[in-house]
Every structure is written in structure tokens, then in C-alpha cells.
């Protein structure tokens, strides 16, 4: 085989052109996140892990809020010794990010002193700080839930007037909107309060294991650390509970394969007392456990189970069948816990001496201490809160569309959050002045243009990285969160020139070898195409997708590491899985026969 030609470096940001015809859509993003000439001196990479698709103007708020919070914690709060925060830019709807490393040895020493005063306090007081964290998140969620959806009455309600309220309903729009945006930025601060420290403790143990056991697989280390009763298992547990409940109440016959959500709900309502009781149980599960999004929660169209019950309900016929057959096991938490303890003890026994065992004990202890947060925060942040946030914005979209700003409430997501505030104030003014808002004439053509741009951007590949390559990637945040190392960059550089093989490689996430038919599932709407025994090939999975693991034989994803959702669930189900392949959904054809070797991280395309 010929050695692949290796381009020496990635293109400079200034050489990446805005795709013709989308210039105005690109200009919608605010000035600080447009590439400038000075950015050519810095290394950037495409954050395809969190933002795999072009971002609409509003969704950009997630990048803005998340990097604002991540940087604050790293740079100013915990004072990570070797890294500050992360800059971000958007071009053609793609989010590029670049870390700011600290390289001056004296500065590192100064920051190390600060770091140990701050981060070590967190490690030492982890449980109480984490308990406090949960309270903060629940309060934030309660506050968001307490805000009424925006509405503009023709006349101010009489009780407001008699109470001397002193502000009119149009002002409530501004308050609600600004609180919604503020809450989202606040949520991201909470999100990052523990994250790097948590991953850091995990990676410390990970690094130790790799040194002590050079050939140990990532997934084995992950299994030693992973929580047993983590929040991510709850939504699926709730579905099992509902299936069991339906069988006990004798109403499970309503879960027919192919029945719509409406059919099922209607037939339950018509099933008297038993149906009513099942619907009550459903309500208990929904709040909060159905607040999980069908994506990572970074796009407004990643709706939750609560918004669209079809994903959750699609699992019920299968689960109910298993309940009747007596083959639907409870997750045996005790047994899983024992297995994890045994695994930890068995590896411990293999260590060379007592010194190593003492170090191992300290590190696994710390990893277990931090991991409930690492696993649990996503449910509260990326799912529950984010779902409330986008739905609140959606309600503004509804209000604006009833006033003629948009043809569809969803169009609101094609305005930046700055522009949306302008549109809301436009409506507030029109309501107060009694004249017509300007928005209905102004926004529709802009929205149409931006929608077209998103479609256009999605049709073009974007470089995996831009700018000069650093000699070493020593930024723990970048390594931890994105798994980017000097080696992975070299792989990216050679990937473009390598001949197309019949292999796709990724992280070995769950071992086993199977062959089967690949089913490319790009979105939740396509999930119903999965047949029993198919191999799921997708961009990314999250807790919402758990129920379909009962149907599939193996899983392959573009994005994710050994602690990703697909990896964790595949291990629980004993299915082979290869994750973080980068390009499985584009290289594998729907219906193609493939072999998945989850122990080695290799997918072979058979025909």
C-alpha cells in the first residue's frame, strides 16, 4: 500500500470561504464570533461532537453560554494551572473552538497554588457541594417552570389595575425573555461548576490504569468507574415500570405495534378505572423523567419525550411482551454493584505491590466520589433545563407568529437571541402604541434566507481543524472533553488522503462481534425504520434512545467515547458497540451488511 500523502497543516481560517449565497445568513452571527485576520495565528477545531450540524442563529446561544461558563470556571474560579478558557467562532453554521493554554512556567506555578486552594476544596467537600448543586439546579428549574408563557391581552386585566401593579403585560414579555436567557447562561455556569474536576479525577484513575495495565481497554476502566443507579438509566427504567404497570392493570393490549400516541392515550382514557390509573402513572414518570431530549440538547429541534411521546411509547409493546413472557428483568442494581466491586478487586489483585494498591485505592475512591456528578449533570442541564428553555423560546415564537412575525412558531429559532429581543420589543411597542409591529414585514424573508442557508451549509463538508498545529495538546479541557491529542490530529491530517477502505474505526465501547444489516438513523423520526436484529448506525445517542437497544444487535455512532451513552447502555445490554467513529453514518450505506467488532473498535463493511 502506498503511504498516504500527508498535508502538512490545516487550512487557515481566512482561507475558509462563506458559501456563496449564504453571506447574509453568516452575517447574522454577532461580531465576536466571526473569524478575523488575527485568528489565523491560532489553532481551531470543528466541535463536531457537540455541534454536528450547522447551527441556526438562535441555537448559537448554546455555544455562547457554554463557553462563557466553561472559561469562567477554568480561568477565574478553579484557576486550572495550564489552561484558560475556550474561544469560539462560527462559519457556515459550524462551530470552531480554540483553547487558550498557559505556557509560562511561572504563571503555571502561580495558578497551581490557586488551583490547589480551590479545586482541592471541591474534591474534599464534594458530596456536600454536589448536594447543594442539585438544590441550585432544582431551584433554577422551578423558577423556569413558574414563569407563565408570554401573552398580550387586549386590555390589561382589571385585577392588575385595581392592585396598582404599575407595569403592563408587555413589560412581562421583556422580563420573561430576559430571565429565560439569564437562566440559560446561569445553567451553564452550574454545568461547569464540577465538570472539569470530575473528568480530571476520572482521567487520573484512567491514566494510572493505562500505566499499570498497558493493554486494558477503555471500556473496562469505564466499567470500574461508571455509576450503577445514575440518572441516565431512569427514563428507561420508568418505561419498564409503565409496561409492568399496564400488564398488572390489564391494559397492555393497547400497546399495539404501530399504534399512534393518540390512539394509545385515547384507548387508555376509554378503559375506565384501569386506564385512568395507568395514565396517572404515566404522569408520574413524565415529570421529570421524560424531560430528556432526543439529542444532546444543543439544538432547538432536539425535542423531549414529553414533547413527543412517540419515542417513549415505541418501546412499550416490546417491554409489555417481555413482561407477559416473564423475561423483562429489573435492572439488578445489587448484582451490577457486586460485579463492579469484583472487577475492581480483581484488577487490584494484579497490581505489582502494596504501594500500587494503595495508590489505586485512592484514585478509584476519588473517581467514584466525582462520578455521580459527571453522569448525573446531563439530565438536569442538557436535558431537563434545556428542554424548558427551548420550549419557553418556542412560546415566544408562538406569540410572535400570532402577531404575523412568522409563518410558523419554529421560525423564531432563525433569529439570534439579540434579534429576538428586538422583535419582542417591536411587538411590545406596537401593542402599546396601538400601531402595527414592523416585524411581519421585516422577518419572513430573512428567516427564509437563513433556512435555505442551513440546508446549503449541511451539504458541504467543513475542515476538521484550522490553523497552525500546536506541537503538543496539553490542555486538559480539550483532551478531556473532546479527546483531542496530537495523535488524533495526525490521524485527521492523513484521513483525507487515505484511500477509502472497507473499515470504519472508533472507540471500542462494548465487546463482542456480530454481523447484520446496518440501519442509518439520522433522527428520531427514522427510528421506526429499525427492524429487530438491525445494527444501529447513528450520529450520537442519548438516554432517549435507550428503549431501542432492546431491538438492535449492535450500535455504531459517529460521536462519543467510552463513557458516552451508547457505550454505557450497550455494555448493560451486552451488545457490541463502536463509538466515536467520526464518519460511520456517511461511510456506511443503509441496508449494507456490516460486521461490528466492539472489542477492537472496528466496523467492517461487507458488501
Amino acid at each position, binding site marked *: 500500500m502506498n503511504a498516504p500523502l500527508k498535508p502538512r497543516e490545516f487550512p487557515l481560517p481566512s482561507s475558509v470561504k462563506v458559501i456563496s449565497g449564504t453571506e447574509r445568513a453568516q452575517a447574522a452571527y454577532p461580531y465576536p464570533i466571526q473569524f478575523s485576520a488575527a485568528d489565523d495565528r491560532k489553532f481551531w477545531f470543528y466541535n463536531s461532537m457537540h455541534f454536528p450540524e450547522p447551527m441556526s442563529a438562535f441555537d448559537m446561544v448554546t455555544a455562547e453560554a457554554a463557553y462563557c461558563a466553561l472559561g469562567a470556571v477554568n480561568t477565574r474560579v478553579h484557576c*486550572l*494551572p*495550564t489552561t484558560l478558557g475556550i474561544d469560539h467562532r462560527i462559519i457556515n453554521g459550524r462551530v470552531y473552538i480554540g483553547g487558550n493554554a498557559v505556557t509560562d512556567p511561572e504563571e*503555571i506555578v502561580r495558578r*497551581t497554588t490557586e*488551583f*490547589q486552594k480551590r*479545586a*482541592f476544596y471541591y*474534591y*474534599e467537600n464534594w458530596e456536600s457541594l454536589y448536594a447543594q448543586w442539585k438544590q441550585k439546579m432544582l431551584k433554577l428549574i422551578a423558577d423556569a417552570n413558574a414563569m407563565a408563557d408570554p401573552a398580550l391581552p387586549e386590555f390589561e386585566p382589571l385585577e392588575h389595575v385595581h392592585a396598582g401593579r404599575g407595569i403592563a403585560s408587555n413589560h412581562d414579555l421583556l422580563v420573561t425573555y430576559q430571565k429565560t436567557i439569564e437562566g440559560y447562561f446561569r445553567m451553564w455556569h452550574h454545568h461547569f461548576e464540577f465538570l472539569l*474536576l470530575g473528568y*480530571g*479525577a476520572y*482521567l*487520573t484513575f484512567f*491514566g*494510572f490504569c493505562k500505566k499499570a*495495565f*498497558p*493493554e*486494558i*481497554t477503555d*471500556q*473496562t476502566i469505564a*466499567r470500574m468507574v461508571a455509576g450503577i443507579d445514575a440518572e441516565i438509566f431512569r427514563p428507561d427504567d420508568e418505561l419498564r415500570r409503565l409496561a409492568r404497570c399496564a400488564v398488572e392493570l390489564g391494559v397492555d393490549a393497547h400497546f399495539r405495534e404501530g399504534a399512534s400516541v393518540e390512539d394509545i392515550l385515547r384507548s387508555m382514557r376509554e378503559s375506565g378505572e384501569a386506564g385512568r390509573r395507568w395514565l396517572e402513572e404515566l404522569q408520574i414518570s413524565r415529570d421529570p423523567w421524560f424531560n430528556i431530549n432526543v439529542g444532546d440538547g444543543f439544538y432547538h429541534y432536539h425535542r423531549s419525550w414529553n414533547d413527543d411521546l412517540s419515542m417513549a411509547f415505541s418501546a412499550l409493546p416490546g417491554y409489555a411482551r417481555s413482561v407477559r413472557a416473564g423475561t423483562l428483568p429489573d435492572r439488578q442494581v445489587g448484582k451490577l454493584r457486586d460485579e463492579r466491586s469484583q*472487577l475492581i478487586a*480483581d*484488577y487490584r489483585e*494484579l*497490581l*505489582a*505491590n502494596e*504501594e*500500587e494498591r*494503595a*495508590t489505586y485505592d*485512592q*484514585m478509584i*475512591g*476519588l473517581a467514584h466520589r466525582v462520578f455521580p456528578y459527571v453522569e448525573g449533570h446531563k439530565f438536569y442541564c442538557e436535558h431537563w433545563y434545556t428542554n424548558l428553555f427551548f420550549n419557553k423560546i418556542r412560546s415566544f415564537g408562538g406569540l410572535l407568529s400570532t402577531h404575523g412575525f412568522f409563518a410558523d412558531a419554529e421560525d423564531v429559532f432563525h433569529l439570534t437571541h439579540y434579534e429576538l429581543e428586538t422583535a419582542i420589543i417591536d411587538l411590545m411597542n406596537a401593542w402599546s402604541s396601538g400601531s402595527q409591529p414592523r416585524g411581519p414585514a421585516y422577518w419572513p424573508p430573512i428567516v427564509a434566507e437563513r433556512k435555505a442557508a442551513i440546508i446549503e451549509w449541511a451539504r458541504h463538508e467543513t475542515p476538521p481543524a484550522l490553523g497552525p498545529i500546536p506541537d*503538543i495538546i*496539553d490542555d*486538559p479541557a480539550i483532551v*478531556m472533553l473532546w479527546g483531542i491529542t496530537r495523535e488524533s490530529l495526525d490521524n485527521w491530517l492523513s484521513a483525507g488522503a487515505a484511500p477509502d477502505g472497507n473499515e470504519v474505526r472508533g472507540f*471500542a465501547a462494548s*465487546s463482542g462481534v456480530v454481523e447484520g444489516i446496518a440501519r442509518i438513523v439520522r433522527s428520531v423520526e427514522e427510528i421506526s425504520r429499525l427492524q429487530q436484529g438491525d445494527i444501529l448506525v447513528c450520529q450520537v445517542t442519548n438516554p432517549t434512545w435507550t428503549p431501542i437497544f432492546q431491538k438492535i444487535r449492535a450500535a455504531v455512532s459517529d460521536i462519543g467515547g467510552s463513557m458516552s451513552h451508547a457505550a454505557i447502555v450497550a455494555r448493560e445490554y451486552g451488545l457490541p458497540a463502536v463509538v466515536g467513529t467520526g464518519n460511520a453514518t456517511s461511510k456506511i450505506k443503509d441496508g449494507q451488511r456490516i460486521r461490528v467488532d466492539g*472489542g*477492537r473498535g472496528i466496523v467492517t463493511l461487507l458488501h
Partner: protein
Amino acid sequence: MSAAHYISWFPDIGLADRPKVGGKGGSLGELQRAGIDVPPGFVVRTEAFGEFIDALEQRSPLRARVDALAADELDAMAAVSSELRARMQETPLPPALQQAIRDAYERLGESAAPGRVPAAVAVRSSATTEDSADASFAGLQDTYLWVTQADSLMDKIRSCWASLYSLESLSYRRRQGIAESTVAMAVVVQIMVDARTAGVMFTRSPISGDRSVISIEGAWGLGSALVSGEVTPDHWVVAKITGEIPVREISDKALRHARSPAGGVEELAVEESMRREPCLSDEELQSLRAIGRRVERHYGRPQDIEWAIDRHTQRILLLQSRPETVWSNKDNQAAARPTDPLLHVMNVFGGRR
């Protein structure tokens, strides 16, 4: 001297008996005691060797001839070596010893394969010296496979003993200044395994020294094809604790060693359809893993194991287990433990220092 002094059966011996049954014999006995399947057999103890050498000494000096050699006199050494070896091959075993071996051989055949006597056995030298020395001068040449007659068995036992007087062995002993009076050798006589598949396993990675994996190599037929390097074996890496199999390298195994109708071992071509087939099933890999863990636990250190799967019973049998030596010398270099456990995280957050 009674037969009990010449012969020991595997279940009756262990590592502590090494001075009298040799390393191989002691290890096979130890394995069987630990509940591991090994092909049944007995050891011709060093007392038998001593008696034979004494018989030789009575005719003309033997040990003194060797003691007198200088380490650098290779020509003289070669001459002594061929003379002594010839004398050993010519001299019959003392009658009582012969009878003891014949009886043991018959009993072994009766117990292992009733009605199918005489039994096919492997005859292997079992040196009493340290492992490393064992490795450096007791070689593969002192294993004789498919021995099926009592007379031939006597011959092979003498050949094993004679190998102690090979030029390599003599020059090694002279260089090390080992006194001849301390030299002894036991011989293992063991039922031959008609192997479908045979190979080796290390209970740690030979590449990285990782104690959490087991490296298994195997090929079709008798293990001699693999040990001699005539065939590239299939290779697997199995995680010791979890049983995952991260590495599976299936090679083209063109030939295999099998029992020759003429006696001994012959080389056969592997059928086309079998050449690229894995020579072990996943189930067998897992059984080997379990056996490897058990043996390692028993000895308290990583092991280097030879195994075979019986063609007829499909049972896995261990032919040998010895301590792994390459990596164990590099162990015990643990990093110092920080006094504050939290300082570990500086490995991640502190940057490269």
C-alpha cells in the same frame, strides 16, 4: 533399593520435591494437586539417575573426568562429551530399575487407556537446576514424543540423562563451576496427548508486561510445530479479568505435526479449508483463560504455560507451567505515592513537567 525410590506418580509430588523429581516433574505434580488437568504420568527420580551413574562409575571414572575439564578446553570437552554419551547409551540400566520402569509404564498404560497398552508416552528431561539455568541448557532436544515400547522408553530415558553430558551442558557447568557431584536429572514419562490444537499461553503480555491480559498462541496438531517455529500460530490477547478478546490474529497455518505411523512425529499439510480457520473457539479461549488464572493464583506469579487439546476428548491439558521471567525482573518499580491523595490529580491538571 525399592521401586518407590525410583518412581513417583504425579499426584504424590509437588514443587517441594524438585530436588528429586526436577522442575518439570514437580510442576506437573503441583498442577495436578491444584486440580488442573495434566496428562497422567510418573517421574523417574534422580535416585534412578544416581544409581545408573554409580553403575557407570564402577567400571571407570565419570564425574572426575568432567570435574577435571577446564572451562576453555573445548576440544577436550567435546571428546569427553562424546565418550561419556556413548558409554551411557551402551550401558543397560540396572535390572531393578528396569523392572520398576516397566511396571510403572504398564500401570500408566492400564490406567490411562485400559486395553490399549502399550501406551504412547512423551519422555522429557526434568532438570533439578534453577529455572534460568534450566532454560539455558536443558533444551527441546530432550523431549521424545510418541514412545510406544518399554525398550524404547529405556533408551529415551538414557538419552535424557545423556543430554546432561552434551557439549553445551558440560561447557555451561564448567563455566559456572558447578560440581559434578551435585548434578542430577529426573525424567518425566507422561501419556502422549493426541492434540487437535496445541500452544502456549503467557499470563501477562509478553509485549507490554501487562498483568491484566493473557496472551495465547496456538496451531493445529502437536505443539512441536509451534515451538519449533515451523508454523505461524494464531494469536489472541484475552483480558484476564473480563474475558474480552481485543486481539485476534488468525494466521495461515500451512502445516501441522502429528503422530507418525512409523513412530515419532511427522509433518503434514493442513487441509486447505482449515488453514485460515481459528484453531481455538471462543469457549476454549475462555477455558484457557480460567485455567491460566487458576495456575497463576496457585503459584502467586505470572506463568508461561504449554497446553494441548486432546483430539478425542476435546479436553484441555497442561503440559507444563513455569514462572514468567522476563517481566517479573522489571516489576517492583512503583512510582512513589504522594502523601496527599489529591496530588494525584496534578498528573492531569499540572501539565507536562
